[in-house]
Every structure is written in structure tokens, then in C-alpha cells.
């Protein structure tokens, strides 16, 4: 899965919280801050809503990178959602690193509604990291594996 054509572009799933990061993405657009078009945004009410199941499902379905972004600590619309999320993401991030998922595949950030420029920077940074890693293969499901095996037969 390392062979890549020169025009390969990664697909990055971005889980953005409705109140800060999604608004931040909006602001980046309105303010014409350029950022790579590799991200596919999933709007969620709060970073605390993003479960490990969603992140790993996205990887399984072939996302090359994941970005989860919420309000800065202290700014959560639901007061404490992102604090809870921070603990869960810290453990998940370490666990994924532990099993050998490349650092940089799954990313987390805080971006507020007023940080259009920062949002563009984060996306830029994440996209570069994922591009450097190449297309994802770890924890990515391929159902043609079995068929290939039979064809070899």
C-alpha cells in the first residue's frame, strides 16, 4: 500500500465541534485563509461527542488521517465536554501509538470560532503530516484480500 502516484492526495476526516472548530473553519473560508482541500468535515455537537468508535471506524473505512477539533479548554459550549474528551483522547492517542499506528494519523486540536487562521494552519499541518506518512494501511479494512487469495489459487 506504499505505492503512490505523484498526484495522490490523502483523505482526512475532520470531526469538528459545532460551536468552535466548525465556526473556525467557516471563518477561515470567509476570511479566505487557504488550507488544503483534503479534509472531509463531520460536524459534531461537541468534541466530547466524538467516540473512539467513530475515529477507528473512519480509519477502518480508509481515511488516511483523522482530525478531531473542539473548543479550547474552558470554552466548551457545554461547559466541560472537551475536558472529558481530552482525557479520552490522551489515552486513545497513546493506545494507538502503542499498537503501532503511525503518529500523525490521528490528530487532535483546539480551534476557537475566532481562529480562522489557526484552523487553516492546523489543517495545513495535519495534511502535511499525513502526506508524509503516505496512504493509510494500518487498521484499514480491505475486503478484496480474500478474493485475491482465491484468485491466486
Amino acid at each position, binding site marked *: 500500500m506504499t505505492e503512490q502516484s505523484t498526484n495522490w492526495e490523502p483523505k482526512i476526516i475532520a470531526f469538528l465541534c459545532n460551536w468552535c472548530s466548525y465556526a473556525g473553519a467557516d471563518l477561515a473560508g470567509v476570511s479566505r485563509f487557504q488550507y488544503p482541500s483534503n479534509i472531509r468535515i463531520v460536524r459534531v455537537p461537541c468534541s466530547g461527542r466524538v467516540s473512539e468508535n467513530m475515529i477507528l471506524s473512519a480509519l477502518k473505512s480508509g481515511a488516511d488521517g483523522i482530525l478531531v477539533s473542539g473548543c479550547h479548554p474552558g470554552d466548551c459550549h457545554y461547559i466541560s465536554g472537551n475536558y472529558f474528551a481530552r482525557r479520552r483522547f490522551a489515552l486513545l492517542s497513546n493506545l494507538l501509538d502503542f499498537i503501532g499506528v503511525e503518529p500523525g494519523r490521528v490528530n487532535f486540536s483546539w480551534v476557537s470560532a475566532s481562529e480562522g487562521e489557526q484552523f487553516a494552519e492546523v489543517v495545513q499541518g495535519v495534511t502535511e503530516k499525513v502526506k508524509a506518512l503516505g496512504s493509510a494501511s494500518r487498521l484499514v479494512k480491505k475486503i478484496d484480500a480474500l478474493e485475491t487469495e482465491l484468485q491466486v*489459487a
Partner: protein
Amino acid sequence: MKVLKVTPAELDAMMQQWSKAHRVYAPALVKQPAASPNCAPGWRRVDGSGALTLSTGPTPASVKTFFFPQPETLLTYTLENNHPDKGLMREPEKSKEMQVVVGVRPCDARSVLLNNLPYQEDPFFQANRRRTALVGFTCDQSLSTCFCTQMGGSPLGSEGLDLAFSRTQDGFIVEVGSAKGEALVTGLDLAPADESEITALAARRQKEVKASSTELDTLKGRELGKLYDAPLWQPLGESCINCGACTFICPTCYCFDIQDEVVRGQGRRIRYWDSCMFPLYSLHTSGHNPRGQKVQRTRNRFLHKLKYFPDRFGPFSCVGCGRCVQDCPVNIDIREVMNDLLAVE
């Protein structure tokens, strides 16, 4: 029936020979990943080198994975938008390549015959049967957990084997049990077995038959209601953790589930092992679960093997390999269950 004589060196040569033309599998005695994507762990691919080592008793994994792969693709389709065949299902090409499974024990060979009863009309099972040859080794020694003789089998049985190896003083005598077995020995320069050795094996078998018990067969005539309401199920169900270990390592557990998997527009419908131990197995969409309690599921597994299956097909759905006895996390022992059932008034 043809009976041949084979030395250990000739056996190695035979395996090498087979592996040139076929996929040859042998038991993996140390922890080893699956030999192929649709084969359960516990078997290794033989690619020409490496002698066969067998442990006493049943092979670590049962042979059912070769007949009932985990998973089997039933059909494939595409869900790509604007594709003219979107949603149209196609039957996958069934592999016809011969696979030779070496090191099979008589209990597992019998399990294939038992599973064949419900799968008589199943195209996938039958295709796998046609392409799989079982090369078995009768048991000189049994484990304390083996009870094949109680289940109508024999450690020296050759039933269901295409080639059955039995140890002699200096090697093996090989009974050719089928056309597939015949094909495997064709072209090999093998001497016929000595008459004395054939008689010796027959005598050993005779002795085995005499020692075996048919007491369990009385279970078949029992009234279902009495067995079903027997007091033994409550404590058993309470200890059981309802994992699927017993059903997955069992050579004769044959339930399956069917599911669709779609990845990036390409889909397939697969069937894979399921276990009646799981609550999901019988759960209705409404939320009603006919076997919602642990004890009901535990009972279902044992009664299926010892009552429902015999009612339908005749024999018990158990070959007495003892794998579940060894590996049950909470030491539920089917031998004990059978004795308790026999004691039910």
C-alpha cells in the same frame, strides 16, 4: 480397498510431492496465525519442507475451517453510484484447487461426515468437500479428555479419511479410502502393506469396538421435555460465561451468521461462524429474545448436540475430541453433562 506401506521418509517425500500441485496444510503446534485469510488459526501451510509433527490427541484446531471457512464469501456486488450493475449480486468463483490436509485425527474426520448431514444441500460446503482431501493418522495414544469411543467413533477409525495412516513397527500402513486418496498415491512408488500388519490393525480395531460403550445411545429415545426441564441446567448456566470458545473450537458446531460488508463501494455477503451462546444469536428485531437467559443458551448448545441433532439426523453432533473440555474457561465438561443427562429420570 487398497492398503499400502509407507516409511516415515516416504511420508515426507509424499508431502513434498503434494505441495507441488496442491495446497497442503498441517497442524501448527505452536501459536501461529492463520495459514490463509479464510482459514482459522491453528494450521500451517506446508510448502515442501519440514516434517510432520503431531501431538497426542486432536489437532490444535479442528478441520472444519477447510469446509466451513471463516469467512466464506456467498456473493459479491458493487454499490458504486452510476455503475450499471449497482446492487446486482454475483456468485463468486468457487476455488477448485485441491487442498490436502495432513495430520487429521479420526475424530475430526468423522466430524466432517456429521456436518455433511445438515450441509447436504449447501453448495459451498459441498464444493469445499470436493476439493479437500483428508490425510489422517489413527491414534496410538489418547488423552484423558478423549471420549470418541463413547460417541460412536474410534481412535483407530478411518471413516471419512481419504488416506488413513496407522503406525506399524517401522512406519505406517496406509488405507486408501476414496478416489481422492487414490489420486494422492497415484504415481508414487509404494509397496502394498504386509498381510500380517493389516490383520493386526483389524484385530486392534476389533478390540476397540468391544471396549466402546453404547450407553449414551439411550439418550436418543428420551422425551425432550424431561431432558429440557432437568435440574442440571441451572447451575451449568450459572457458571457458563456464554463465550463462544467451545462452539468455535468444536469440530461439529456448524451454525453461521450472514452479513454484508461494504468497503469503498465494493460489497460482499459473507457467512462466518456464529455461536448459539451469544444473546444476539436468537434476538428478534422487536427486542424479544426467545433464549434471553444464559441458562437457555447453554442448554441449547448441549441439547442440540445430544438431542435435537440426533432427532433430525440420527447420530450425536459430537465426536468426543475433548477440545471443549480442555479449553472451556469455566471447566464445563460435556462428559459430565452427558452423565447427568443419562441420570435424568
